[in-house]
């Protein structure tokens, strides 16, 4: 597969009154055509800042891209002017935000909002754009599309609004779709519908998706590859199977261990002690070391590089160094790794019965 997007050693800082906040500290990843990359991490880990920078949506002059490249189809987006970016935004790269109510204009009819991109990027006239907008609404599963075009956002439910936002994002057949926690504000049943919709749309259009979330269940559903971010860095990246069935980084262990499973064991939930570091003064060495019960002495001195686990799987932890003591993941995580498929069967069985 060819690479659509390559991010190389990207570093972004915010200048605030109290000093420089290093939100992203050297992130590298790539996205192939037609693939879905999920970025997971807790708030403040830099996942939203990274993706916003791909569209150059960060406020200037407060934010500064300190170094690095964002290569989109071989062109570096870092050096583009505002005018050049306007041609890319909404056309080649588009974005879906967490809260559909704040990303829609409450005073504009849905139809006009969807048509905006078509008129701007595809030089359509209003009369050409209108049927296309109705078609998009149908594509995302909104019934009575022609009638709905004339309604305002407040006349839609939360799930329907998110569908409208997706329709807007898809209007110009973008090559890359960035979804920033698109389902976090929605109910589980609606969430499942939206995820299915996004997968269907991807199958149809072949676009790539970067999916930001903190819900590992959602990641397992939608992603081909997963990048785990912590304190402005990617600490582990690999295919979905590698991250869920063979995680290497203690932070990934912690994330997996803190999700409850549905089986009958009454085990204690693993929790990651403490809270994320203050990015005003990022700690020396491995940023996760203070919360990591597996931390080695070297973790407080020197930042671990990315160690290769397989061709597609890398993790930044000294535990993978050849001189490091061999450490097994905690029992809870191991049980989960083995037990996950079992949980699945248990539920699958249930569903089989009611048919």
């Amino acid at each position, binding site marked *: 597969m060819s690479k659509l997007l390559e991010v190389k050693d990207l570093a972004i800082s915010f200048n605030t009154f109290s000093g420089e906040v290093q939100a992203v500290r050297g992130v590298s990843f790539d996205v192939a055509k037609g693939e879905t990359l999920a970025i997971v991490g*807790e*708030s403040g880990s830099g996942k939203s800042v990274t993706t916003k920078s791909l569209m150059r949506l960060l406020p200037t002059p407060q934010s500064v891209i300190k170094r690095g490249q964002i290569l989109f189809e071989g062109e570096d987006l870092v050096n583009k002017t505002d005018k050049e970016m306007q041609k890319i935004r909404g056309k080649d790269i588009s974005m879906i935000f967490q809260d559909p109510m704040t990303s829609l204009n409450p005073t504009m009819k849905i139809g006009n909002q969807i048509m905006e991109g078509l008129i701007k990027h595809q030089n359509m006239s209003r009369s050409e754009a209108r049927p296309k907008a109705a078609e998009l609404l149908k594509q995302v599963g909104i019934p009575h599309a022609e009638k709905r075009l004339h309604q305002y956002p407040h006349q839609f439910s*939360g799930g329907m609004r998110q569908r409208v936002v997706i329709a807007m994002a898809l209007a110009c057949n973008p090559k890359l779709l960035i979804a920033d926690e698109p389902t976090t504000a929605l*109910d*589980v*049943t*609606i*969430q*499942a519908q939206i995820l*299915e919709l996004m997968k269907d749309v991807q199958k149809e259009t072949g676009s790539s998706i970067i999916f930001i979330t*903190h*819900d*590992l*269940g*959602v*990641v*397992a*559903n939608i*992603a081909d590859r997963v990048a785990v971010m912590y304190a402005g860095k990617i600490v582990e990246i690999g295919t*979905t*199977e590698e991250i*869920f*069935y063979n995680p290497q980084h203690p932070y990934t262990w*912690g*994330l*997996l*261990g*803190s*999700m*409850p*499973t*549905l089986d*009958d064991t009454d085990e*204690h*939930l*693993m*929790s*990651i*002690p403490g*809270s994320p570091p203050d990015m005003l003064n990022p700690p020396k060495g491995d940023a996760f070391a203070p919360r990591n019960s597996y931390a080695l002495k070297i973790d407080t001195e020197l930042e671990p590089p990315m160690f290769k686990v397989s061709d597609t799987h890398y993790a930044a932890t000294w535990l993978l160094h050849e001189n490091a003591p061999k450490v097994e993941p905690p029992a809870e995580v191991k049980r*989960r790794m083995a037990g*996950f*498929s079992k*949980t*699945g*069967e248990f*539920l*699958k069985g*249930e*569903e089989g*019965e*009611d048919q």
Partner: protein
Amino acid sequence: MTVEKLLEVKDLKRHFNIGGKATVKAIDGVTFDIYKGETFGLVGESGCGKSTTGRTIIGLYDATDGEVLFKGEDVHGKKSAAEKMKFNRKMQMIFQDPSSSLNSRMTVMDIIAEGIDIHNLAENKEARKKRVEELLETVGLNKEHATRFPHEFSGGQRQRIGIARALAVEPEFIIADEPISALDVSIQAQVVNLLKQLQDEFGLTYLFIAHDLSMVKYLSDRIGVMYFGNMVELADSHELYKNPIHPYTKSLLSAIPLPDPEYERNRQRVEYDPSIHDPNEEQQFREIKPGHWVRCSETEFEQYKKDLNLN
């Protein structure tokens, strides 16, 4: 477990007037009991009335109809101020958003001690301070935190302050309304473990309201599923996840995202279509087997029973 009923909710209704003659029936006749020492989970999608139920029980909303009995005593209706005070000490609430439920102009000390002051639980200033410091340590914070303001804390820490405030008056029953939804994954587990630990330590009873079904399953002994102002199913948590009967429960369970790629790829989602119920038959809450209740009509009841016996 002892089967002493701590809280009895009987046919509780709460309707909201939304202008003119229109009303929203946020809760429309909900009945359940909560036993002493257990965690009762309440799940459902947004707008199903689960938060309204919690708020009506504690008296933040007046009930339109129905009864709430706490240890056999009616907690609503006309009461003297002294009786209300007595009741308020026994029941406390933890809210979803810790940043909007803590007064940003009060120090942590004053926030936590507010209940202590109102109920005159501290003899003097020294005792008050000692009690607050004790509470802070119980929820995993330091006593140095007492002089700070809420904005100086992270989300997880703020939720701990909210929990300390609830514990300050030594309640028996705590209503937790989505206490972890606003928190990060790594912090959620911390707070959930803290709630469990406090329950063991102080013998608390919880009403845990959430939409995160896997967390509810983890925490709760029994679970009630709500749909559009009605309770549609109530059962022991293992039982509910193993033998869901109501089609809405099934659809809700099939939508839970699980951190397992293989399962997720083969997932079969069940959609709930409310029109399968015959509108001519009256829907009632019926006990299908001991402790397992389902809202259904007479015909559905027979059908569900048959299905259960077949299994």
